[in-house]
């Protein structure tokens, strides 16, 4: 990974120094090796803090909504999953494609430090990955973990490829895989109504309305969000009533239905580890089943499932679990 990081920093510095771009959006080194955060770099000196490692799970495309409005071009590093949100935002006229220089960067999956710590590993100093082995150097010695067990949830079922790029930095090809990203959704669909209700009530009762999921979601980019608008009748800062924790998530999932690119950021940032991606994937599975397979963000133009129709669409009373009854 260090070789990729070197190239990333090298290219960023070159682009900025030559004046081809006015700023670079990337990941900045945090206090530790496992907490890089999205950042804007405006000078070559600042780029000394640019990193690209196994913990750069954050999707950078949403920041371009505001940043690409600034004077000059903005360079951004996009992992495969990020390019879909980027395209979707272009389709929705939130990002001006001409103002952005997109660098497609390789990705072999990103790690989840919470999962690593849950295995009892602490005082992490450095992480190295060789094939399926994750070697964690800690103050207490080196721990070796199995990569599939400590991947970010969104990476577990990822089959995405770069949809857009002005240039690429890919030194290692990702092996092809055959995974069913709807397996968890199907498991829930197979439960009874009562079991499903109990599952979601338990999960959503953890919700503290921190709004991290909404804030990080590239599809949630309304200037005035309905949950911040007192006139909407659903603005609230806390889950006050029994129903409110469900209300927020049902509405938000519906608002992004058909536009959600399945980037998985919502689940990654949830401090209570609520599997929010299972809500959005349900909509995607239903859309695929009712109206034909559709991947938001694959194209930068065209209609979305909820802004189009056919005369033979399935009737709501019959539509259940992604198929007409």
């Amino acid at each position, binding site marked *: 990974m260090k070789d990729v990081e070197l190239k990333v920093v090298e290219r960023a510095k070159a682009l900025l120094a030559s004046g081809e771009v006015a700023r670079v959006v990337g990941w900045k080194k945090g*206090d*530790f090796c496992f907490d890089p955060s999205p950042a804007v770099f405006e000078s070559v000196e600042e780029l000394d803090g640019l990193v690209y490692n196994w913990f750069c799970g954050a999707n950078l495309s949403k920041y371009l909504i505001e940043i690409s409005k600034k004077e000059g071009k903005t360079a951004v590093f996009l992992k495969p999953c990020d390019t879909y949100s980027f395209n979707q935002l272009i389709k929705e006229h939130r990002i001006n494609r001409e103002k952005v220089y997109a660098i497609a960067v390789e990705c072999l999956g990103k790690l989840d430090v919470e999962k690593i710590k849950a295995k009892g590993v602490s*005082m992490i100093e450095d992480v190295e990955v060789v094939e399926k082995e994750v070697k964690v150097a800690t103050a207490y010695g080196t721990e070796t973990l199995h990569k599939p067990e400590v991947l970010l949830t969104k990476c577990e079922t990822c089959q995405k490829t770069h949809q857009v790029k002005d240039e690429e930095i890919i030194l290692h090809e990702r092996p092809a895989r055959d995974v069913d990203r709807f397996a968890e959704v199907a498991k829930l669909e197979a439960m009874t109504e009562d079991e499903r209700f109990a599952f979601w009530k*338990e999960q959503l*009762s*953890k919700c503290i309305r921190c709004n991290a999921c909404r804030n990080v979601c590239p599809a949630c980019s309304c200037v005035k969000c309905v949950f911040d608008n007192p006139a909407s009748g659903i603005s609230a800062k*806390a889950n006050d009533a029994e129903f409110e924790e469900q209300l927020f998530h049902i509405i938000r999932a519906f608002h992004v239905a058909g536009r959600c690119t399945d980037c998985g950021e919502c689940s990654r940032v949830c401090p209570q*580890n609520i599997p929010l991606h299972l809500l959005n994937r349900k909509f995607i599975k239903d859309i695929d089943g009712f109206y034909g397979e559709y991947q938001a963000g694959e194209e930068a133009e065209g209609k979305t499932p909820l802004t189009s129709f056919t005369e033979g669409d399935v009737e709501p009373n019959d539509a259940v679990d992604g198929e007409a009854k």
Partner: protein
Amino acid sequence: MLKIAKERLNELYAAISNAMELVLPVKKAGEVNFAMWAEGKEVSLETLKTVKSPKDTFFPQSENMMKFKTDGKNIEILDIRAEKAPTVLFGVRPCDYKAIEVLDKVFLADPVDTYYQNRREATTIITLACAKPEESCFCKVFGIDAAAPAGDVATWLDGDNLYWQANTEKGEALTALVKELFAEGGEAEVSAQQEKTRAIVEKLPFATLDLSRLSPKTSTIYSMTLLGRK
């Protein structure tokens, strides 16, 4: 110093719960947070930090503060505050306890926040010392001793036992209630753990954080609230 075997902790929880409300770190749907104890719940004292702090015990996310009735032009304001039932808050980390002390400085000073005061006075806080601090722990920099927490009762947990020491009157009162479940002793084990913990804390990345970069105003606030200097 008192001690009780780890296997018997459920008895301790039941005994406390019989007399008052017991709030401690409970695992639910994969995450550990402070919640009311009930028979059968999965208590998790080994988890270093709960996802949310114990602040909710004193500051619930929402509450009804008052009710009022209007009758034409007359308004009658009803004080619907209920007396907070005696509560035991168990398993508070030293850093979280320090935070409660900071809140006390604000909300128990004149004018007193009576909602906060009501809940605070009705609660006995049992702290739990840390045995395995992590790299993001910052206790030392703020003058907090992770191995010897303050609180009405301080406790330590090792592989075999929970060790218990009352520090205040409230703590003594609670101890009297559950004394029969405990045995005397444990000073040596606690000392040993304290030494180990302090050694780890010395090596933490934030142990020697340079706070000289704080602005003078922030510095003053910091020393008044956290270090307790006037």
